Structure formats: C-alpha cells, structure tokens
C-alpha cells in the first residue's frame, strides 16, 4: 500500500484533532470544555504521531483501499447514500427501501442478468422483504416512518 493512502486518513484525523483542540481551548465557558480539553490534548498528540508515521512511510497497519475494491464499492455506496440522504425522506421509507433493495440486489447478485427468472426472483425477494419490514416496524413496533409522496 502506498504512502499517500495512509497520509489521507491520518491527515484527516489529525485535522479533526486540531479542530477539536482549537474549539476546546477557545470556546467559552471554559468549565464546559474542561473534559474536551483533556481529550483533545491526547487526541492531537496521538493523531500527530499517526500522521507523522504516515508521512515518513512507517505506517504499515491496515489493508488499505484497492482499485478493484473502489470499483466494486462505488455503485453500492452511491445507492446507499441516495437511499439514506434523499430517497428515504422524499419517497417514503418503504418505497425507498424497495427501490434500494432491488437495485442493490441487481448490482451485486451473482446470478446472470440475462435470465428473466433472475429478475422475477429478485422482485419476489424484494416484495417479501419489504412486506416483512412493514409487518415488523409498522404493525409490530408501531414505528411511524415518513410516508411522503408514495408509501
């Protein structure tokens, strides 16, 4: 794994640590930030150590992120992000869940896309799953989820 891969996450963590320390030591009332100051001090020291090691190329722990992994992950991650941050609220939980579930199944199911039966099976699995979720959350647990434009 190349050095740059370690520098990015440890750099972000170091930046967050510095921001936490800055806020902790500058915001008022000071009494409310006593504990955060304690944490922030240790946070910055450890983050600086990690960042320094990454810059020097001494960071060895972790499998890192490979190109093939990113290629596999990206479509699923995008669907998940759209589902969580937009569709669940805009379309309603059950509609969004059905759509996201079906798309994810289609994207990652190893069964061939060329067979009609595969698509029917995916549709059936999606329908059964959403029905179970509705039964569990709406009927059993009485959780009122956003229904919005659809269901």
């Amino acid at each position, binding site marked *: 794994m190349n050095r740059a891969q370690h520098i990015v996450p440890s750099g972000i963590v170091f930046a967050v640590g510095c921001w936490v320390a800055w806020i902790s030591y500058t915001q008022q009332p000071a009494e409310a930030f006593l504990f955060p100051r304690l944490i922030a001090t240790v946070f910055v020291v*450890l983050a600086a150590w990690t960042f320094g090691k990454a810059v020097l190329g001494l960071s060895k722990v*972790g499998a890192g992120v490979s190109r093939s992994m990113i290629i596999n992950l990206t479509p699923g991650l995008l669907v998940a992000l759209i589902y969580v941050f937009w569709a669940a609220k805009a379309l309603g939980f059950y509609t969004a869940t059905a759509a996201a579930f079906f798309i994810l199944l289609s994207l990652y199911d190893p069964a061939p896309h060329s067979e009609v039966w595969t698509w029917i099976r995916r549709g059936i699995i999606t329908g059964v*799953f959403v029905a179970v979720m509705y039964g569990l959350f709406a009927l059993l647990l009485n959780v009122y989820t956003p229904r919005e434009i659809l269901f």
Partner: protein
Amino acid sequence: MEFIYYFGDVFSPLSFLLLLGGTIGGLILGATPGLSPTMAVALLIPFTFQLEAVQGLILLGAAYTSTVAGGAVSAILLKIPGAPANIATTLDGHTMAKQGQGAKALQLSFLASAVGGIFGVLLLIFLTPVLAQWALAFGPSHLFWLAILGVTVIGSLDSASVVKGLLSGCIGLWLATIGFDDIMGAQRFIFHPALGGGINIIAALIGLFAIPQVLTMFAKGRRTAGAEVIEVQKHSILAAMRELFRRPRALSIGTLTGSIIGLIPGVGGQIAGLVAYDQTKKFSADKDKFGKGHSEGVIAAESANNAMVGPSLVPLLTLSIPGSPTAAVLLGGLLIHGIFPGSDLFDNHPDVAWTFINSMLIGQVLMCLFGLYVAGLAARVAQVPQSVMAAIVLALSVFGAYSVQSSMGDVYVMACLGIGMFFLERFGFSAAPLVLGLILGPIAEANFIQGGMIADATVGKASYFLTGGLNMFLIAVVLASIAYSVWMELRARRHTTKEEAMA
C-alpha cells in the same frame, strides 16, 4: 443465592418465547458469515423498545449467546467462521466434516459450548453481586479511571496498532462530548442541527458495527459464497456426550481459559478460542492429530468462546464498564430502559438483573438443544448471497436508527459514522475502542467534573486523581495494558522484519 428466586420469571410466556426466538434466530444469524454477534445484537436493540427492560435484555442476551455458538455451524460445514470467535473451530471442525464426521463435530461444538457457557454464566452469577458491593467503595476519581481503563484496554489490546487503537478511543470520547454540556448547558461541537441532542448511542452502534459490514460486502462485488455445505450424516448424541466427557482436559482448559479471558476487558472470543486451542494442543498426548480433525480441537475452541460470554458481562453489570463491544451494545440496551448497571441494578432492579442472568443460563441449554436441529438450516442460510445480506442489513440499519427517536438526524449520524468507520478500519483504526469511548465518555466526564469539585474543596485535583491506593492501581493497569501492547507490537514487528530478511 438470590438468583434462584427469579428463575420462574424466565418461564413467563413472553419471556420464554423471546428467549427461544432469540436463541434460534441467533443461531441462524451467527452461522451467517459477516454478521458478527455485536452487529446482530445492535440491530436487535430497536426491537426491544416496545418490551419491558427484562424482556428486551432476555432477547439481547439470547442472541449474544447463540450467535457465538451459531458461528461454529458455518465454521464446521462451510469452513467460514461465522464470527472471529469461531476461527479456531474451523481448524479441526471442518476437517472432521470432510471426513464424514460433520454431525459429530456439530454435536461436540454445541455440547462443549453449553458446558463452557453454563460455567461462564455461573461465574457471572457468583462474582457479580460481590463485585457490585465492592464497587460501592468507588468514588468519582476511581470511576473516572475505570472508564479510561475501559477505553485504553480495548484500544490497546483490540487493535493491530496501539496508537491507532487509542486514537480510536479518543475519537469516541470526543464524539461523546458533542451536544449540550450537562452542567453549564453550553453548546459543544454542534456543527449540524442533527447533532443538537448529541450522538444517539443506539444509532451510533448500528452505524459503527453494521454499515462497515455492508460496505465490506459491497466491496467484494458480484461474488458467490463459493463454499459448499457439507452434508452431515446421522450421529448418536449419546456417543457425542461420551466423547465430550472422555476429553476432560480439552473441556476444562477451554472452559477455564475462556472464563478468565472473558473477565479481562477488551480481550474477545477470538483470542479465547485460539488460546484454548493452543493450550489444549500443548498439553495433549495427541499433538499430531490437531488440525487433522481432532475432536479436542473443536471442544477446546467452542467451550472457550462460549465460556467467555458470561464473564465478559461481569465488569458491565458491576462497574458499568463494558468489557467487550457486545457488552457495550448490551449497555446501550440497558440505558434506553433507564437502568444503570452497578450496585443500583442489583439493589433496585434485582428482578431485571437476575432474570436476565438466569435467562442466559437457560439459554445455554436451549442453544445446545436447538443448535443440533437448526444447524442444517443455519448452514443453508449462511449460503445466502452477500448482496441479499448487505441489502437486508442496510435496510434494517436505516429502520433501526430511525425508530430510536423517529428522527432522520439519527439515520444521517448512523450513515456518516458507518461510512467513516469503514474507511478508518481499512487503515488500522478500530470500531471497538471508538464505541467504548462513546459509551464511557459521559461516565468519565461526569466523574471528572464531580471529582474536580470535590478536589477543589479538599486536597486539589492532582492529589485527588493521582494519589490513593485504588487510583494508583488503576493508573498502573492503564499504563501496563498500553506497555504490554506496545511490547507485543514491537515483538511482532521484529519477527516480521526477521522473516523478511530471511526471505
């Protein structure tokens, strides 16, 4: 012997039904690779909101116990450990299955799990009340150091890199400070309206444990499980019991190792199973048979990883310090019902405490009884394509996080923490210390502030927090755990360098 009075409560219809459902469901979930016990328990928490505290805990406890045991099914029949705790089981269990002794391996694994598990829960029953009374002597400074100890022990022992483990703990402690300060009412680190009320523990737990698993499954792409379920032949359960008790050394080493390791915060079932396997091999007359389908290997590994379950709850129920990530999730389950562990739990809610602990004892027996029958089904469920599992877990995470407070903010927090954790894990950071930091942060801060007030009125902060026998002992344990981990890391690195040089 107070626990005996509450045995009947486990058999009330709903409680027993939940125990049964949690056990069978846990066995199936445990057999599914990628669904760890911690994640299974975290995803179950939203289902306990409508239940009484004790019923909710029975469900969570049953799931915890049986997911650990259920992991042996896929370890034996598919050569894929259901959870890290079952890695050692794969070594001999799968070879036995390939030799046509799959049923025997499964029977031995469930019987050994039950023996180890019952011993572990008995240890929990007899140690907990004593330690809970002892915990009354703890003042704010001791509780502060205990909370720090919980984070540092897991941070240093559970991570591949000590510094990154401790840094993960720090991130968790910082996340716990987000929101309004309890004493001054000041806003702290609220950079988005969704964080106004702080980070919800349950949503965070779901995000930190479930979402990285979902993304890991996505990252594998369109791939089949690639493992075939080995068909099991019939085998007499009595013969398996005779075999188990013909191997008392493996059973006792596994049970004792698991129990002791369970008591140490931060050291998980994976280590318990591997250490027990290694020790049994060392003391066995048939060293050569290990790894080639020897029943002692399965007995040692499975008795150890289940013996660990009960003792891992001792620090949680007595000192509010979860000893493992799963115990941290159980603490979340307790807190949402307004119950705080420690002596308060045994003094004011003995029905909850003892019924829960008793249910774990009975759960071990149920797990053994049903495990043998559910194994075949569980192995088939384990073959479900990862795409289906990933989509199910994602949807359950979204619904689960939302149902905590009916807030989309919690869903966003869950998703952000989960995605962040996935990438951090790829670079050696660890979710366990982060979660413990998040859970123990408020305990550490409350006692730090309270202790600070006492110190200002008496001997001063430095004397109050750094002197006294118990304070110094706890500080010494914190430093020792870090030093030990650093030493182990340096030793491992030296070995690697030597091997590289030899190559």
